[in-house]
């Protein structure tokens, strides 16, 4: 009985496929798998924009949008209509073809990443042998799209934004991959489906999520920091840098193309959050074995929404970093820690299971973290200052 709601979409798909002639079975199957993703995630994007504006509003003692529809629920729809009906302005000197292709490529690349994301039990689009690799490979195409947008606009601000974006993405791709390597080491597989399945087992009622191990926890934190930077979210939103370079690489876009950039960016954020869930938070598995009666896809989206809320919360709090600080942070802190984490993960594999292993690894992670922090602190000379007062 509990299987039915869990597999409802899989069953539905097979039921629908029964009505399709076998000659086009393969294509129909693909369409039936892709279409829901193409609908659900843009819908999630719409919900997230509203959630973000409402959440930020509440953080800032405001109400947020509440005029369109009940509680402002139609706001995303209104935004969509607005951006669709706006004039599409292309700068006179812009490289028209590249200018047009950039948002398209961005959205396509962002959508491709969902192919390997298991959004529920038996609900990954394809079970690629090298699924994690596929994800990062597709992510690197986004850089090209960003460059195309920045360069083709022939605007100095968009050029600055593109340079910032690419430098940032390249720098953070390395720690992103390195932080996820520990999981691949432990799972012994690059397939996202396998990785989740390995975490979906339980000791007593507790699951074997990788985030509950010392290296997994550190890996998760590092991954999330890098993911924030990859998806250009605050405090790493320098490529957009509203107050500095106005909107960065998409400054010269308007109307629907602008909306596409927005969509692409949010889709990228969902995808990286999704992969973080897959790698560290047990994908679609329930957090307690007694909760497995709730469908797996519900767990996945619940976890996704939680991570999105974290993103919004961080955005509502922190100021932006500067370019060089961002780079230093990547190369001087995240990268060494990620490399060290790999050593710990290797150690973990060869030690006997038990509390001793846990504490040794945790200790070995905390020590370099503090040492590194202290070294960086010495270098930067930052302090809480005291001030003198004249009477």
């Amino acid at each position: 009985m509990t299987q039915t709601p869990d597999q409802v979409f899989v069953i539905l798909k097979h039921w629908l496929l029964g009505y399709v002639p076998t000659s086009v079975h393969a294509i129909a199957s693909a369409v039936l798998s892709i279409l829901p993703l193409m609908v659900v995630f843009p819908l999630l994007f719409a919900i997230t924009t509203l959630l973000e504006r409402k959440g930020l509003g509440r953080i800032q003692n405001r109400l947020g949008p509440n005029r369109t529809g009940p509680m402002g629920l139609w706001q995303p729809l209104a935004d969509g209509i607005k951006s669709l009906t706006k004039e599409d302005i292309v700068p006179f000197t812009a490289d028209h073809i590249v200018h047009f292709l950039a948002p398209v490529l961005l959205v396509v690349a962002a959508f491709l990443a969902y192919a390997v994301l298991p959004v529920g039990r038996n609900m990954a689009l394809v079970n690629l042998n090298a699924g994690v690799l596929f994800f990062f490979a597709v992510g690197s195409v986004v850089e090209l799209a960003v460059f195309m947008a920045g360069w083709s606009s022939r605007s100095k601000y968009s050029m600055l934004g593109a340079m910032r974006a690419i430098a940032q993405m390249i720098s953070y791709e390395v720690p992103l991959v390195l932080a996820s390597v520990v999981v691949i080491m432990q799972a012994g597989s690059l397939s996202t489906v396998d990785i989740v399945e390995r975490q979906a087992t339980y000791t007593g009622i507790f699951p074997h999520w990788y985030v509950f191990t010392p290296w997994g926890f550190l890996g998760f934190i590092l991954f999330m920091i890098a993911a924030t930077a990859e998806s250009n979210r605050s405090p790493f939103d320098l490529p957009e840098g509203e107050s500095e370079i106005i909107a960065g690489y998409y400054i010269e876009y308007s109307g629907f193309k602008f909306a596409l950039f927005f969509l692409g960016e949010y889709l990228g954020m969902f995808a990286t959050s999704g992969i973080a869930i897959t790698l560290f938070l047990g994908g679609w598995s329930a957090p307690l074995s007694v909760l497995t009666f709730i469908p797996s896809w519900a767990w996945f989206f619940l976890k996704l929404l939680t991570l999105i809320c974290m993103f919004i919360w961080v955005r509502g709090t922190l100021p932006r970093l500067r370019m060089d600080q961002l780079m230093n942070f990547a190369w001087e802190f995240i990268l060494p820690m990620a490399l060290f984490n790999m050593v710990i993960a290797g150690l973990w594999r060869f030690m006997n299971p038990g509390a001793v292993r846990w504490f040794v690894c945790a200790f070995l992670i905390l020590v370099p973290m503090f040492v590194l922090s202290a070294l960086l602190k010495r270098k930067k000379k930052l302090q809480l200052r005291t001030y003198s007062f004249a009477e």
Partner: protein
Amino acid sequence: MSRDRGSRLLGEGIIKGLAETARNFFGSYISKQRLTTVQYPEERIPQDESFRNFPFLVYDGSDPEAGLRCVSCQICEKECPPKCIFIEKSKDKKPDAVGKPQFYPTVFDIDVSVCMSCQICVEVCPFEAIKMDVKYDYPTESRFAALLFDKHQLAKSNDYYHQIHPTEASAVDAALAAEREAAATKAAAAAAKAAAAKPAATAGAPGTATASAATSTVTPPSDTTAGEPR
């Protein structure tokens, strides 16, 4: 990102900040203090009594033409910093609210697109004839003509004045009453004194000292005689 003191943990300031925003987020559902939005067209903050926007002309009684307090002395026109008041003085005299013959403005225009709501016209008016209105929404379709208010648009009754600025209006009324009484007694005394009538005595504005003593909210029009071109 690094620490400022050895004892501090990594990102402690960031965690503190996050805690603060979380407090505000949840606080906005509980406390009115943390949800300051006023949803304007439906909800309105009660207007403060001293609020001011654009000037209007006060008239006594019910007839805006006859009861207009303005005697067209043109002081406000001269003192207005952005020069947004335009007055044309009448050739003849008409009896005012108390029956005394006075000049009156044939044209009294205020260009509210120029007016900067500084209240100086109110301060310099010796006759309590111009006051500040509280209406602030004047949506129009033209930038110029519709924002040039003429005498009829500007004239508003003393009751309206009482309604929008009760404290100030009562003080002004008291001052005016005292002034008129003083003028009446003076006139009566003058009439009783001798048959040699000196109508010029009424031309000066007596009793201004009484007016300023009566209230501190109204700036004393201490130099009425000097200001009048008569």
